[in-house]
């Protein structure tokens, strides 16, 4: 930054210059003030010393001396009493003058006191010396005539003295004036120089100030330009971020849509008869899809975390239940790797963000499972103090090298490349955990010993801790509904997946490919609910929703989007939608989204209904497909399969017991056993068997052949599947 440096130097020099000039100005000002004060004092002194003009006084004395000489000469020529009186009188006048030049203060006696003093003293003493003579003559007027020549001589001497006094006084006066003039001139010259200097200094200061102002205004303009440029740069950066965000959203949409197809179709495919190999391959497809979904979710979460848009929704929940769900979700993975997953948590109610806590736990436990080959994973949660939840996830895995531990919570940092290959993943999980925990005001950390295992812990502030809690009422999400649904979705795969899932939930479905078609369908048919994709050609979901609302249609609309951003959710609700569903759509998510708007069908009524309908229209397989699908969705494939297995053992046992009772004519026991069996087969959706048992309700109609037929049907259950 040489420019800035030189600018700083310039400013520094200017500052020094200004200070110097200011000092000079002040000094000059003080000097001028001092000089003015001096002049003032001198003036005042002059005023104080206003004196009779010495030259005038000397001249007067000389004149009087001259007069005296004159009157004496006249008296000598024309002697008379009057002439002598005049001489006496003139002497008195001269005498008064002698007093004046002796006593009076003259304006320049300070300067020329010595020289002038001698002359005036000479005049005075000469006059005073004459005084006894005149006094004597005044006392003896008869002597006056004789005294005249002496008086004339003495008076002429005085005249000479007064003349010399006049000359000296004049000279002294002149030199005094010259000196005074030169003093004043000198003072004024100094004053003028000082004023000039002051003026120059002030001019320089003004000049510098102007320069400074110019500099400041120029700097201001430069700053303006700079800030404008900065604003543009910030705008560009923001645009970049927006573009990135949009790119991420569209990417996630593009990825989620086909992923939706993959996972959905895999789900559907899993419910069709498959060979073991096919089932395994399907499992791989499904798992890969889920993994990919995890990755996308990670990236999305990270982008949300990165942009600071973390929504923390606090709610009261049961800590033990939350950890149980984590266990339920994670234990299949642990079991698959031969690991033991144990979770310890007190049954307490706390207030925090359960979804975030679950996300963090799933992440940490997932990591632990990922990096542990054998042994166990332990999750312990306990309260620390009154308001802190301490959770520890320990594993017996490979551990982390000490040097790498600091990298743990950094973006996109997988500890080494071989691990990437071995374990996969985005490397974002821990970053997300860290950000989430920090957003909730907590801290996260890890301790590890390579080869022995790792321990991840976090400390989270929680509120409203209650030790004893009532078991939350179990609200079952029904998975079988009544009603008709309009699906507005442009992607054919998604259309198929969603409509198949909906059909399996007992709903009738109509599909349209865009908003315009949706509007048309709604005006022609009555639907109970619309599943509306947000992004569609011709007319998108939001616009369609707004149009419907404007037309006064109150039909529930659930938005469907591959974007999982909060902004999308907000857009849905502000457009007038009632719900929101992010892809990929699974049966449980669908059920949860539909539950508030649709009437559920109860299991029992469904069972009876379907069994009745099956009796009227016997299915070739004798299985109520709809019910069976719902059952699988509700309980899971494995459970249903296990139950079917149990039916083969327990059901056949019950059938044998019934047959024995029939043979022993114990009708009641027989009927009780058959009723139990009927319940079991109906619960599993074997409508044909149920119908057969129902048909044999009257014990009188029973025979051995009926029992044989029933046994055959039950044994055929496996094959039928």
């Amino acid at each position: 930054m040489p420019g800035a440096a030189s600018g700083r130097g310039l400013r520094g020099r200017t500052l020094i210059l200004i200070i110097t000039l200011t000092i000079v100005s002040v000094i000059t000002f003080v000097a001028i003030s001092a000089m003015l004060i001096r002049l003032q004092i001198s003036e005042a002194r002059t005023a104080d010393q206003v004196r009779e003009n010495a030259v005038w006084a000397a001249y007067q004395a000389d004149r009087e001396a001259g007069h005296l000489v004159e009157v004496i000469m006249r008296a000598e020529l024309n002697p008379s009493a009057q002439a002598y009186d005049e001489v006496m009188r003139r002497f008195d006048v001269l005498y008064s003058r002698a007093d004046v030049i002796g006593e009076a203060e003259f304006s320049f006696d300070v300067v020329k006191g010595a020289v002038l003093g001698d002359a005036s003293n000479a005049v005075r003493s000469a006059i005073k010396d004459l005084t006894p003579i005149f006094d004597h003559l005044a006392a003896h007027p008869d002597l006056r005539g004789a005294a005249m020549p002496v008086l004339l001589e003495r008076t002429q001497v005085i005249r000479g003295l007064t003349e010399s006094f006049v000359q000296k006084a004049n000279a002294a006066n002149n030199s005094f004036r010259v000196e005074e003039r030169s003093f004043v001139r000198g003072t004024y010259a100094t004053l003028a120089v000082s004023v000039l200097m002051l003026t120059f200094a002030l001019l320089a200061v003004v000049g510098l100030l102007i320069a400074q102002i110019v500099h400041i205004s120029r700097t201001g303009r430069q700053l303006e330009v700079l800030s404008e440029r900065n604003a543009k740069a910030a705008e560009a950066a923001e645009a970049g971020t927006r573009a990135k965000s949009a790119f991420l959203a569209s990417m996630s949409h593009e990825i989620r849509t086909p992923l939706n197809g993959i996972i959905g179709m895999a789900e559907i495919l899993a419910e069709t008869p498959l060979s073991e190999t096919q089932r395994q391959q399907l499992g791989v497809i499904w798992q890969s899809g889920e993994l990919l979904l995890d990755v996308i979710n990670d990236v999305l979460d990270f982008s949300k975390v990165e942009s600071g848009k973390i929504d923390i929704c606090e709610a009261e929940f049961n800590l033990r239940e939350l950890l149980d769900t984590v266990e339920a979700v994670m234990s299949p993975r642990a079991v698959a790797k031969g690991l033991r997953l144990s979770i310890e948590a007190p049954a307490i109610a706390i207030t925090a963000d359960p979804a975030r806590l679950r996300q963090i736990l799933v992440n940490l436990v997932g990591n632990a499972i990922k990096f542990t080959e054998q042994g166990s994973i332990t999750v312990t949660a306990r309260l620390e103090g009154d308001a802190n939840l301490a959770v520890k996830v320990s594993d017996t895995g490979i551990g982390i090298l000490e040097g790498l531990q600091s990298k743990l919570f950094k973006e996109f940092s997988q500890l080494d490349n071989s691990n990437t290959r071995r374990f996969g993943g985005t490397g974002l999980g821990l970053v997300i955990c860290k950000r989430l925990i920090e957003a909730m005001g907590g801290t996260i950390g890890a301790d590890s010993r390579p080869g022995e295992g790792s321990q991840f812990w976090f400390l989270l502030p929680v509120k409203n801790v209650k030790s004893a809690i009532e078991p939350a009422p179990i609200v079952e999400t029904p998975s079988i509904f009544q009603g008709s649904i309009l699906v507005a979705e442009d992607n054919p795969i998604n259309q198929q997946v969603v409509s198949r899932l909906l059909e399996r939930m007992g709903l009738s479905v109509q599909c349209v490919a865009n908003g315009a078609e949706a509007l048309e369908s709604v005006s022609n048919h009555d639907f109970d609910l619309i599943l509306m994709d947000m992004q569609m050609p011709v007319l998108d979901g939001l616009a369609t929703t707004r149009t419907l609302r404007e037309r006064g249609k109150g039909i529930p609309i659930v938005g469907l989007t591959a974007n999982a951003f909060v902004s999308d959710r907000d857009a849905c609700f502000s457009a007038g939608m009632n719900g929101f569903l992010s892809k990929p759509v699974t049966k449980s998510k669908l059920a949860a989204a539909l539950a508030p708007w649709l009437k559920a069908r109860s299991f029992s009524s469904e069972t009876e209904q379907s069994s009745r309908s099956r009796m009227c229209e016997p299915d070739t397989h004798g299985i109520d497909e709809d019910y069976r699908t719902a059952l699988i969705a509700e309980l899971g494939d494995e459970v249903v399969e296990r139950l079917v297995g149990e039916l083969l053992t327990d059901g056949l046992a019950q059938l044998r017991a019934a047959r024995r009772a029939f043979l022993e004519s114990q009708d009641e026991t027989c009927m009780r056993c058959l009723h139990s069996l009927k319940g079991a087969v109906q619960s599993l959706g074997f409508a044909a068997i149920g119908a057969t048992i129902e048909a044999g309700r009257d014990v009188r109609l029973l025979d051995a052949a009926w029992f044989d037929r029933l046994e055959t049907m039950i044994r055929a259950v496996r094959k039928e599947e």
Partner: protein
Amino acid sequence: MRIALALLAFAAALATFCAQAGTLPTPTGQVILTVRGDIANTNAGDAAEFDLKMLDDLTNRTTVTRTPWYDGAQSFSGPFVSALMRAVGTHATTMRLHAVNDYTADVPVQDAMRYPVILATRINGMPMSVREKGPTFLIYPFDEAPDLYNEVYFGRSVWQVEAVEFF
């Protein structure tokens, strides 16, 4: 101080006009002051002559002041000029002072209206001889009115005054 002086002068001036028409006594002692010119009251032809006693009988004042002609302050006493004017009955604007040595100086009468100007007959209580700048000396109150302490008033402060002419 200045207001007091002005009041004093005004009172004196007022007295001048009030006592316009009067008669002058004849001097019994040596005449030390002769007043001529535009005057109403006379006692010697067209002139008014004053001896020391007559001047003492006029309204007197003692002015203690420094002057350029003496070392330190001196006490001068004598009649107000305004009292003298009243005595001779004059409306003149100028008075010309004649000194023993033929020196003359013109003094505006207004000075006597504005300041307590006296025609001093005594210095430090003693009558003044010609040698002591007598017989009369026009004295301004320099110490009481410092503005007067300059060459203009020094010039008007005539000593050895033996005659006054009003016109």
